[in-house]
């Protein structure tokens, strides 16, 4: 987890954590290295102290824990954390808006919740299964109206990457 991509409006930056001690972070953002204190002073309100300067930056979750709306003093940005899970979800979304016939997780994880039974009719956008992977819960949804054909796992199961979890038709 010490390296990932973060998109900010049209830019995508590579971010890497080199060192951390409490609120102090050594981070590279693309080619720039920074040594900063980053303190959450109120819920979603951050104070960044760096090179003696004091900056106030506020974050709002914008639909999920990995999407943000960021307010700095004069600029606001839409941002997104792009980790392996996001990339996978994105690649799935790019294929003509259709579902795979098997729902799986791109990473090893643990089944948190199964929201359907075999034979259920689900609607486009319904969440079928929730998997905790990469230490975050991820919801897996269908893109069109579907029928749940088979559920291959149970809640609390530990699952491998790409292991079939739910079969739909």
């Amino acid at each position, binding site marked *: *987890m*010490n390296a*990932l991509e*973060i998109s*900010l409006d049209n*830019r995508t*930056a590579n*971010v890497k*954590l*080199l*060192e*951390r*001690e*409490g609120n*102090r*972070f050594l*981070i590279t*953002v*693309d080619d*720039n290295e*920074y040594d*900063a204190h*980053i303190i*959450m002073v*109120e*819920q*979603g*309100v*951050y104070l*960044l102290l*760096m090179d003696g300067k004091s*900056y*106030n*930056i*506020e*974050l*709002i979750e914008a639909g999920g*824990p*990995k999407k*943000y*709306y*960021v*307010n*700095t*003093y*004069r*600029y606001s*940005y839409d*941002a997104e*954390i792009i980790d392996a899970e996001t990339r996978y979800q994105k690649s799935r979304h790019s294929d003509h808006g259709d579902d795979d016939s098997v729902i799986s997780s791109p990473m090893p994880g*643990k089944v948190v919740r199964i929201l359907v039974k075999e034979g259920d009719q689900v609607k486009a956008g319904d969440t079928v299964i929730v998997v*905790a992977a990469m*230490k*975050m*819960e991820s919801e897996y949804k269908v893109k069109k109206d579907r029928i749940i054909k088979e559920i291959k796992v149970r809640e609390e199961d530990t699952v491998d990457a790409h292991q079939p979890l739910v079969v739909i038709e």
Partner: protein
Amino acid sequence: MIEKVLVANRGEIAVRVMRSCREMGIVSVAVYSEVDEASMHVRYADEAYYIGPAPSAESYLNMEKILEVAKQCEADAIHPGYGFLSENATFSQKCRDAGVIFIGPGPEAIRSMGDKITARKNMIAAGVPVVPGTTEPISDDSKAMEVIREVGLPVMIKASAGGGGKGMRLVKEEAEVAGAIRMARSEAATSFGDDSVYIEKFIDSPHHIEFQILADNHGNVIHLFERECSVQRRYQKIVEETPSPLITPDVREAMGEAAVAAAKAVNYSGAGTIEFIVDDDQNYYFLEMNTRLQVEHPITERVVGVDLVKEMIRIAQGDQLWLKQDDLNQDGHAIECRIYAEDPDNNFMPSPGRIAHITEPKGLGVRCDGYIYKGYEIPIYYDPLISKLVCWSRTREGAIARMKRALYEYKITGVKTNIRFLERIMDCPAFKEGKYNTQFIEKNQQCLMGPQENDPQNEDRAIMVIFADYLRKLDKFETKVVAREGTADWKVTGRKKNLFN
């Protein structure tokens, strides 16, 4: 003595009225619509009653229901705030009939100022300058042409029952007159149910300057000086200040006297505002009277040192004005910025939604009259005004500097606001020099809407904070859910304490 006041309004103005009630030891009663159950005016009031569904017509404009609540809770008086029922002569009448004091003028005064032609006639009779034009509704096109030739083109065709830009037509050439009158008439009929229109000379790029007046029920009228309201966008005021940087002491005195005469001409009672349009040579003309408390009243309160709501309540209960004209003077300079939930980068579209976080400006010379709070959901049904930020200083320069400081401190996340846009107004040379009129926004587009420059350093800081937040979430998540399954790399890294001294 008024002991209980029902505030027939919501948002910042309802809270503001209740504050004065509390200081006077008066019990305040809120009324609220379905979506306003958790709104600040309900939280602030001593009593609160539900009056109907979200749409104003079914709640805040529902006269019968509001009067029913007033009777039920035994309120002595109703304060209408601004907007909603505040300039409704019928409501003022209904209050009178129901034996509840309407904190504002009687129906007669509202009516005689509400009809623009009647108002013009009254003002002419009282010796108050009006914009040259007709004094009677236009009967036919040839009569109209006569007037137009007299006052000269361009002219405005206006609806007698009008307001807010509706039923208005600008005429620049004689050929347009007949069509313009027809269209204005039709729009007026649709909007106000009254197709009377009249003609006024069009004054190009005027200043908009208004005078605050207070009139008691014993014939005493005073004015509390002017407010310069020329910073407007689509007839909507954004920034107001007092004193006006335009007018000289002589003109101020004359306009003040005209304002008092205007109020006296209609036997006015309560707080009211006489709006003038003023040209660059300080010629001033009566435009209309707002027979209620204005949004921008706090700048007058600060510079004159008067609580206008308290005075309104005292007048309503029959007290004589305790302030005399000679007691009053303008001390220093005050500016108001209206904070709206709107998106300046997207044609100022309203931006309702939930407030994620709010930090309001404070300190010396700052007053912030708002009503939203963290977690509050700004409803889609009402005005997008969030608050009014008022800054005072001994000098105009100092007041602008203070406003910039206060706008810097003001942080709202969750909805878009015009705060940064207001900062650009404060930085605009035309504003700083006090040389602006109602064309200010149009004329200073470059200064006000300049493109945001990219700042990669600022981007990097935003990215770092997002990263830190993500790590914090993982941290929390790990502790909560997948704890004791091994320690992630980044935490091990964090433990290498020796690397940081």
